[in-house]
């Protein structure tokens, strides 16, 4: 393409803006949370716009200026360029103006014929507008159909994602229904996305209602990803009975959980301090031939430590090393937390040396855990030493460790030292001034009460 005469700003936009992603290139809702997120940001028009806004060639949403800018550009057969031009304008203009610009582009350059993604730009724009109805979205969809592009699964996906990322969840649901009635039934990616949204901002009963409705009227069935999303949500609300029920349903429907789902289920049990159930999940994984990964072991060790079974947690540290997984800072810190809970602070401290020896760098969380442990166990010398190290490294204090340290110092009559810790907490912005002060005040109050 002839890049020479283009404004630099637009060239940059053209190079990063791709035509809308086709369904074939959609990665499956992957088992680990990170790829799922990347996929979301790759498709969400909003994220992409943010990147472009700094490079947009438009300074104002004025339509005639946009038209003349377009005329000043050379006619180029590259569709991507036209689309990114329109996209840049759409990010700052109204839907009506964007449609007029598209019409102008088609009229003045007969070589340019818009494709599906051109209309998706307009659709995404209409979804982002904070409107009380779906009128704008319908306008974009009708325009699309009128110009010979019947809305398909990708259209539905783009619209639903754009609507919900703009906080228009009800509209997204409404559109989901409309699309399945009028056009094609949305695919499982859109379906799972809606389930995820509902989990996040609606009640569980609404999620089930949606799933039942899709199953009966559209033939869309929940898949492994759907169950993973729901179970993860249920785990976060600490609803043990529902977790157990869902795990049962999974078996009945004949799903074979993958490592990620097992980890999610295990996390649920661990958050409720159900050590035995967590171990059961681990054993079931191995029975079913799913190899536990680093996350599995970290979850298990965290859960057992939380449930006051640090000895067993330590056993799994050994097992994971034997299986070739390298324990990381999370593994060690969880275990230290467990040991501190059982008042074995020295054991936890020994673990610090052990982890350093094996080349794992402790972080602020590790130090806070130990500091908390030492203060609780009234081993202030070690505690103060540790605090010194943290201060030298500029580490932030966590609320619990800070409060325990203050209380311990005050109880020993080291009021000036407590004030010094307060200063450090404020200075390092570990806590807000308010919570740092409230803690100091109540620690002092406690001491004064004892003195009287």
């Amino acid at each position, binding site marked *: 393409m002839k890049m020479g005469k283009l404004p630099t700003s637009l060239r940059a936009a053209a190079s990063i803006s791709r035509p809308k992603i086709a369904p074939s290139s959609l990665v499956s809702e992957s088992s680990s949370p990170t790829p799922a997120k990347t996929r979301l940001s790759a498709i969400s028009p909003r994220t992409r716009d943010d990147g472009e806004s700094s490079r947009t060639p438009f300074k104002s949403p004025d339509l005639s200026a946009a038209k003349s800018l377009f005329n000043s550009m050379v006619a180029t057969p590259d569709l991507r360029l036209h689309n990114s031009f329109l996209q840049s304008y759409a990010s700052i203009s109204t839907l009506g103006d964007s449609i007029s610009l598209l019409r102008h582009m088609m009229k003045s350059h007969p070589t340019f014929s818009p494709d599906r993604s051109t209309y998706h730009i307009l659709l995404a724009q209409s979804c982002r507008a904070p409107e009380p109805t779906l009128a704008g979205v319908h306008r974009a969809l009708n325009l699309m159909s009128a110009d010979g592009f019947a809305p398909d699964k990708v259209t539905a996906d783009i619209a639903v994602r754009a609507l919900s990322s703009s906080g228009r969840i009800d509209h997204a649901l409404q559109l989901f229904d409309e699309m399945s009635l009028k056009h094609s039934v949305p695919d499982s990616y859109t379906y799972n996305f809606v389930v995820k949204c509902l989990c996040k901002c609606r009640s569980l009963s609404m999620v089930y209602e949606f799933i039942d409705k899709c199953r009966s009227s559209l033939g869309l069935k929940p898949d492994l990803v759907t169950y993973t999303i729901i179970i993860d949500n249920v785990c976060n609300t600490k609803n043990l009975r529902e977790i157990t029920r869902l795990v049962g349903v999974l078996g009945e429907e004949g799903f074979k959980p993958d490592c990620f789902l097992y980890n999610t289920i295990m996390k649920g049990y661990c958050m409720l301090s159900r050590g035995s159930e967590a171990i059961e999940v681990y054993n079931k994984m191995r029975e079913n031939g799913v190899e536990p990964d680093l996350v599995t072991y970290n979850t298990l060790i965290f859960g057992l430590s939380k449930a006051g079974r640090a000895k067993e947690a330590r056993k799994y540290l050994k097992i994971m090393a034997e299986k070739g997984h390298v324990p990381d800072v999370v593994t060690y810190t969880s275990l230290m937390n467990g040991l501190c809970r059982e008042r074995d602070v020295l054991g936890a401290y020994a673990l610090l040396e052990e982890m350093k020896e094996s080349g794992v760098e402790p972080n602020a969380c590790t130090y806070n855990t130990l500091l908390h442990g030492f203060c609780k166990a009234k081993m202030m010398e070690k505690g103060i030493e540790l605090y010194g190290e943290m201060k030298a490294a500029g580490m932030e204090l966590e609320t619990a460790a800070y409060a325990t340290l203050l209380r311990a110092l*005050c109880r020993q*009559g080291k*009021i000036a030292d407590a004030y010094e810790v307060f200063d450090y907490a404020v200075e390092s912005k570990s806590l807000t*001034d308010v*919570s740092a002060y*409230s803690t*100091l005040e109540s620690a002092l109050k406690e*001491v004064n009460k004892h003195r009287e």
Partner: protein
Amino acid sequence: MLPPRMKQAITDNPKKLANLIDLVNLPTPLRDFMGQSQTSRLGCFMRVWSYIKENKLQDLNNKNVINCDEKLRSILLGKPQVELAELPALIKLHFPKKPN
């Protein structure tokens, strides 16, 4: 973003937080010390504590004790010596509880 624990504290007891950070019209002696007519209890404590540090008023032999200078005495009940531990309580005296 507030830490969850603190959010909890606020929702549990919004009044407690309010009387810590709400601006209050100061009584005259405190007004002279602060050099402003309005401040919150937290702001006042921070100011007094940094005044102590700046002027090195902590006793050299016992850092838990403050040797008040004249200015400090005027706001801390006229005491020549004050313990660090009672500082928040003494400052609180200037901020009477608001009636409901």
